[in-house]
């Protein structure tokens, strides 16, 4: 399982990999927002949590349709499926690799963008923590979508439609964490986000494996 994670991470990190592309996309979207809504830093600080959360989520989705696709096309997914590792564990490894190459770098980049949005320090911390805890849920739920759209040639278009409504709780709790930190409030957003993320990571490999299995069966 570790070998599979390492292999996927290496593939994503090398040339043409998705990790850098997702980061660049994240930064580009975040740059366009002030151009659209104006440069008022107070307004930007207010919307920063939501904008960065949505942008990070879209960036992570961008890399999702390749999650199983490349391995499916060249046949290595069949080899993996025949191997000793169960598809559930394979799915978990894929989710972990996806998070390590998109969710984690996006989280690390986010404080920098948050500074550009004029977010105060305590809210930047909240954004960082909420992304760190919440992005695994994006990878996990996204993986279900990637598994389901595996055999569709242009699955890249359907994937977001399937996955985004399911991810609404992550955005609500994630951006809610940032907002409450901004207002100096303590509310239940972060524990709820943690619970959502844990549940998604635990349950998703089973749904993902079921989805992949039906696409592998001839």
């Amino acid at each position, binding site marked *: 399982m570790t070998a599979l994670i390492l292999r996927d991470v290496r593939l994503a990190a090398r040339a043409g990999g998705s990790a850098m592309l997702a980061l660049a996309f994240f930064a580009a979207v975040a740059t366009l927002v002030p151009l659209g809504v104006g440069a008022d830093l107070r307004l930007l600080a207010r919307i920063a949590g939501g904008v960065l959360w949505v942008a990070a989520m879209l960036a992570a989705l961008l890399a999702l349709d390749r999650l199983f696709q490349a391995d499916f096309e060249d046949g290595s997914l069949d080899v993996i499926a025949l191997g000793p590792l169960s598809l559930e564990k394979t799915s978990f490894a894929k989710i972990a690799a996806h998070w390590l190459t998109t969710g984690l770098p996006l989280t690390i980049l986010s404080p920098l963008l948050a500074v550009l949005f004029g977010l105060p320090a305590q809210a930047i911390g909240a954004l960082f923590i909420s992304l760190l805890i919440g992005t695994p849920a994006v990878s996990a739920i996204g993986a*279900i979508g990637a598994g389901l759209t595996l055999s569709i040639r242009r699955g890249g278009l*359907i994937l977001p*439609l399937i996955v985004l409504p399911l991810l*609404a709780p992550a955005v609500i709790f994630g951006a809610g964490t940032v907002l409450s930190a901004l207002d100096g409030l303590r509310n239940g957003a972060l524990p709820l986000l943690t619970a959502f993320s844990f549940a998604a990571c635990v349950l998703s490999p089973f749904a993902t494996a079921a989805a992949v299995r039906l696409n592998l069966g001839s």
Partner: protein
Amino acid sequence: MLRYANPARFMTLSGTLVPWLGGIALVALAAGLYLSFAAPPDYQQGDTVRVMFIHVPAAWTAMMVYGLMALASLIGLVQRHPLADVAAKSAAPLGALFTALGLITGSLWGRPMWGTWWVWDGRLTSFLLLLFLYLGYIALWNAIEDETRAARAAAILALVGAVNLPIIEFSVDWWTTLHQGESILRKGGPLIASVYLWPLGLMALGYTLLFFTLWLLRIRTEIMTRRARSLMLAGEA
């Protein structure tokens, strides 16, 4: 129940049921509509209260349809029975339609009552997300050519959605809410006067039976389409 999973038996049974269900649905809708207009105007909302009679049952039906679709998906996934797959597939567009109807009538009601077509309120938002879930389900089904494979993929999606729906509902409610709370099924009896409760109940019955009529019709159409297709394939061979 499983006895009627045989398509031939299902066709005979549903063939006799459809006119009855449809007839009762029409009567209930007609009586409900009549009572809706006969009911006195509300002391606060005036005549706009009548929107409730077409809005609330649409929303109820939309949620019930998702439940039925998820149930059919589960049966299809576990029993591998094509009829359950067809049932789930046929329910989705109807569910999307009732969801859209609930959203549109709600919007028309919100304009005079809240002074705006749309508010980012808990129930409205979760209903909009429900509509997207339906659309995603339909899109996934249409995108996969192989029918059994499409059925199973869509079933997994429906079940994932069913698990996630309460969480979405909760998160959106937690987020903010302006929509009024539950006023029918609550401790201590309904908060609505019986002069409104009757037309509401009749309309709900009418909507539900209408859905079942259309559902059975869609399932029958799908079965006949598949039969026609296999007959054509057999003719070519």
